[in-house]
């Protein structure tokens, strides 16, 4: 049985991390930068962040947070439903790969099921 996520292309690390960072609620660019660092230890510069956000907005996965529109100095961004689904599809792909790796004898160091 195929799942809808089968045909999806992998996300770039930057996009993936930004989506994860925004999963918990709207953040402004600098907030995303800090959150990605906390979550993954990856240091992304403003160019990567905003370049990715531009692409994410164009794809309809992220939108400017309408609640924060009154404060233009601190533009915030929020995940859309499509963005959330895209993130979930990526996780499906991760899970399959994890399962595959485990079946091929790669031990899971965390012991997670």
């Amino acid at each position, binding site marked *: 049985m195929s799942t809808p996520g089968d045909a999806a292309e992998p996300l770039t690390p930057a996009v993936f991390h930004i989506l994860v960072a925004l999963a*918990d609620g709207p953040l402004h660019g600098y907030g995303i930068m800090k959150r990605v660092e906390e979550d993954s230890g990856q240091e992304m*510069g403003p160019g990567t962040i905003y370049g990715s956000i531009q692409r994410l907005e164009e794809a309809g*996965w992220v939108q400017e947070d309408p609640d924060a529109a009154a404060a233009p100095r601190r533009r915030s961004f929020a995940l859309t439903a499509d963005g959330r689904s895209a993130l979930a*599809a990526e996780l499906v792909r991760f899970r399959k790969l994890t399962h595959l790796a485990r079946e091929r004898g790669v031990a899971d160091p965390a012991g997670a099921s």
Partner: protein
Amino acid sequence: MTGRHRLARFAYRLLLRRYPARIRERFGDDMVEAFSRRLDEAQQASGLRGSAAVWLWALRDLVRRVPPPLPAQRSVPGPLPPGRGSSGPAVLAQEAGAAVRRLLRAPAYTALSVGITTAGVTTALLAAVVLESYLLRPLPYPEPDRLVSVRPASEAVGWRTTRDVFERAAAWDLAGFTLVGDPGADLVLGARVSPDFDELFGVEPAIGRFFSDAEAAPGGAPVVVISHGLWTRRFGRDPEVIGRAITYHDGEANRREVAELIGVLPADFWHLNGYTDVLLPLREDAPITMGRLARGLTPAAARARLDDRTGGTPDERITLTSLHEAYTARARPRVLLFQLAGGLVFLVALVNGLLLALLRMETRAPETHLRRALGAGRGRAALGPVLEGITVTLLALAGGAALAWALLAPLQAGLAGLVGVGVPGGSDTLRIGPASLVALAVMGAALALGFALVGALGAVPTGSESLRGGVASGRSTGARRGRRMRGGLMALEVALSATLLAGGVFLVQSNRELGRIDPGFDTRGLEVITVGLTGPRYDDVGTRLTFFHALAEGLHRRPEVTAVALARGAPLTSGLTARRVVTAPEPGRAASAMDAVPQIASPELFDLLGLTPIAGRLRPLPDPGSAAIGRSVAERLWPDEPVQQAVGRRLRFEAWSMPEMTLDPGPWLTVSAVVPDVHMNEQGAAPVVYLPFETTPSRWMDLLIRVPSGRSPTDDDIRSVIGSLDPGVPLYSRVSVDGATARNQAPIRLAATMFAGFAAVTFALSILGFYGVTTWAARRNRRSVAIRVALGARPDRVGVGFAVDALPWLALGLLAGAIGGGWLGQILVRQMPTLASANPWTGLALVLTVLAVAGLVAVWLPARRVAGSDLRATLEG
């Protein structure tokens, strides 16, 4: 902002030209701002080296290519990555398995949660079983909805003359019968019953048959039906007993009769009164007391027809009440009280279970938020906690049902004493029936709904930091809602606990006061043996005197017995009724009156009870027209004189209805002695007028014996003494005074134990709830606590701060508890009049104080502990 920063911002803005115009124009300011903040942080942390690192980082970032465009549409796999299956049932099974595993991994939470909710379910289920058995289940008779009690008994409403109103009706004449012959005299309770009895109650004899019409008709053959108990006890279940002649003495008719035993009632036959050991046909028309209304006849129409017969005057107006209602009228308030107590315990357990679930949700908030972040909808995120709650609910329901089932037997033993009447249908019918199962289902639904609500609340994001397990902001709507919910639950818990505790303390207080009552005499080793003389032989007062004196001597000769006295009605064991006593008119003094208990007594009674006369003499035997009186009688009849002055004065009972000596008024009696008061019953010292046994020997007398060694003569020993005087005289009863006192106090003791148990459980639960919630809140706010302590606040003061935060909820709960406790106290006093001596308000004040102190300590202690822990690690972590 420094000039160097301005320069850096300008330089960085120039570098941004590498980016496409649409990105630069839209986000340029934001990018410069982000760069500037990063530069600022780096400079503060590492000075010039930090600045250099940021510039390198920015340049590296510029070298990277702008990410490629993303597909406008990316396939959506559903709310969460499906694991082994994506269908609804598969997801549910997967989540249920995960919920069970999570519960197994948290044994402390699981045990506590299941334990608390099981306790609540057990208690409420037992209460529901009592409610169902007493008030909901119909009486075990055919067509019970048409059975009515007929009051008052009216000669105009006899069983022969009401065929147009009642399909079947029963009249009976209750009596005591003394069975004589082998294996000895046996006094049993029975009745003459109208011939409809068997069909009215749907009873088929176990062996033999019921009365035939010919036997029930005037002049019919003498026949008798006996109970299964008597058949077992006296005849060893011998089936050959049918057709045998039974000789008995009819106490009512005062003559010896013989009847043929024609039937034995079934073992499971239950009757509203216990007068069923011997049933004889009632041949003459007699007032009916219950019946089954004719089909299609409403109670109102039936009443109208009966009123026509009685004349319908207000005094004679017949009332028809459902037989079930009439039987359970006494029990109803106490059963409802039991229900209330059970319901309160369940509510407290429910609140605690929800509080625990809420705490667990909060501690698992980061996990929940991660799930939300990974795409789980609120429903899916709440599914796990809800399934955990349902698992706890199912365990609690199963455990509660099993525990309640196990506790039914001990409950049966004390229930009749507690509620005032036996279980309708017999104590075997105290079982978990359909209504109790509905109650169980309702409890399950309440628990499941509560857990679902908590799960839904936990699935709502309460702050951006939750994902990282950080400090809740406490300012978000979700956090406020959670805090209010916890506070409200705690207040509810305190209110319920206070209500039950007040009731429990009040009952325990009353029980202790009853136990402390000084009866006025030594009750140790004191037993009361009751003997009744039947038959024309004892019509003569002299024969009675001779018999009872000989019996007293015979008992006194037993080596175990040190003293014997004769009395009609012994203190603390009998329900003697007070009657109106008036003094004789004296010159210059109006007659005074009061209610006093008339007690027939031999002079030995005073020695046996250790009552030394305050004034006058008890020996030699007083004149027939004399009486000894208790101190309180002297004080009330002649209030302005010393009690010694009562000797020689005269009094009499206004209605002298002593057995076989009904006079109105009684003869004048001269006071021969004044003795100390004794307690005639558990309600206190009753004023007693002692009448000489020699002048008023009843057929029924109590023999008080003192057995100081604790080695009492057996019943057979006593029967042998009685039998040596007259084999036809049965031993009616034998009780110890201490035993009778304990039995009288048993309902209050049982109620006190029950309420105290309920109250102790709810108290422990509510304090545990306070402690748990504060521990959780303090841990959640560990960082802010740490900052406050780092800024100089003492851990004690932090604890006080938490206590102050909890105060409004605690106060609200205490206020509601005070109202509830006062209300419960009033109900208890109404239902158990012997409690009136205790003061419900003292207990309530004590309960509120203890709850307030315990509640504040339960809040202060965990907050202080958190404030005193390793906060450096907290701040650094």
